[in-house]
């Protein structure tokens, strides 16, 4: 032990503080939280990977801990051709996904054959005080290399004062071979807390892809 005490003493300065040599990565393995001043502001809360999944639901971790929640979806691939990738919210931890929403959706589109371009509001794809699922993208193809990637952001879902706003931006490889850039925004028109989010295809399974939920802190 005397040797260890001597070695230990060599790792302290004269004020009793640890020198750099006294601590390394393994020393920190038991740490589960950092002081606010140095903690990262973007925390991975959970990851779900689809494998012929009817839906991907996030039923825990959406609360008052963070100001924003980001859902980053990568390579979401449908089992069925020409479908929409949709979402809805819940106020009962996922027992039902039927929150009233009013939304906007616009897109820009361009096909690989260069035969058309489009920029416009899509009045058939928005919602006006509806409890239905909202499209994130529509027209998604299911060729082997076709998929959608993007980011869905949910703001302050635990508020019991305000409606809960959301935005989504996604890049979509549509069924007839081209790119759609789709921008969705709106609000869950409720003062109840939103505590779960569900993602699914309008028809068929989600065959592949990941959705990662992050909490983003502003303080």
């Amino acid at each position, binding site marked *: 032990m005397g040797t260890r005490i001597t070695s230990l003493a060599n790792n302290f300065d004269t004020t*009793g503080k640890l020198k750099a*040599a006294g601590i390394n990565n393994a020393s920190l393995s038991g740490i589960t939280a950092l002081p606010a001043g140095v903690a990262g502001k973007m925390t991975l809360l959970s990851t779900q990977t689809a494998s012929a999944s009817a839906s991907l639901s996030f039923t825990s971790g959406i609360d008052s801990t963070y100001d924003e929640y980001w859902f*980053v979806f990568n390579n979401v691939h449908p089992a069925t051709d020409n479908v929409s990738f949709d979402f809805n919210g819940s106020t009962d931890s996922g027992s039902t996904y039927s929150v009233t929403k009013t939304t906007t959706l616009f897109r820009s589109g361009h096909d690989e054959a*260069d035969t058309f*371009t489009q*920029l416009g509001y899509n009045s058939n794809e928005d919602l006006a005080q509806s409890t239905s699922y909202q499209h994130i993208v529509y027209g998604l193809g299911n060729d082997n290399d076709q998929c959608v990637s*993007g980011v869905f952001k949910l703001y302050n879902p635990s508020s019991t004062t305000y409606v809960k706003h959301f935005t989504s931006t996604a890049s979509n490889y549509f069924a007839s071979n*081209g*790119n759609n850039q789709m921008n969705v925004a709106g609000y869950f028109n409720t003062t109840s807390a939103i505590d779960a989010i569900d993602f699914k295809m309008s028809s068929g399974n989600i065959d592949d892809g990941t959705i990662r939920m992050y909490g983003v802190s502003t303080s």
Partner: protein
Amino acid sequence: MGSIIRTAANNVGASGVFSSSAFNNASLNSVTSLPTAVDGKMKLISSQTASGDASLSFTSGIDSTYKTYCFKFINLHTSSDADGFDMNGSTDGGSNYNVTKTTTIFQAEHREDDSGTDFSYQTGLDIAQGTGYQRIAQSVGAENDENVVGELWLFNPSSTTYVKHFMARVVLNTEHDRAREMYTAGYFNTTSAINAIDFKMTNGNIDDGTIALYGIA
């Protein structure tokens, strides 16, 4: 040694756990990574600052480590008025930047003198299965205070199954004094991994500014 041990002992609680007085910033100089539970999820991989550069290329760090990559553009300033800001991808580590892509691009614009606005698709700037550079910003001004800021997100570039989607949103000052916001999206239409990205001005050099590459874990 006895004196040091006594001083150090005062920084250890009764249960043998170090108190906060045992640490300062210098204590952590040897730490190179944090436990997963407390690790930040947006990691700065590399940063490049322009100084009259023909291009800024990111030829390392784009791999399977992260599912999502984000490039941040900070105050990019062109040497040539009415310039464009462009990007392309590579599947060979940056030897060639010529990946086939299909893209969309649109803009919102407002003139400083309030004489007009615009919201329109930019048919001359999109790409249909072309290998050329994709425009991210158009009509960039070169006055001393004019610049481009924004982000480009690249999704799962190492996939060998799917095309690789990307999305960019920038705001700039045009050469004719307009605030312009440009949205670009599309996909590298290849199942080869994208492992390098190149940024350059269409005509001039990147005189100033920073591009930072982040991995999102």
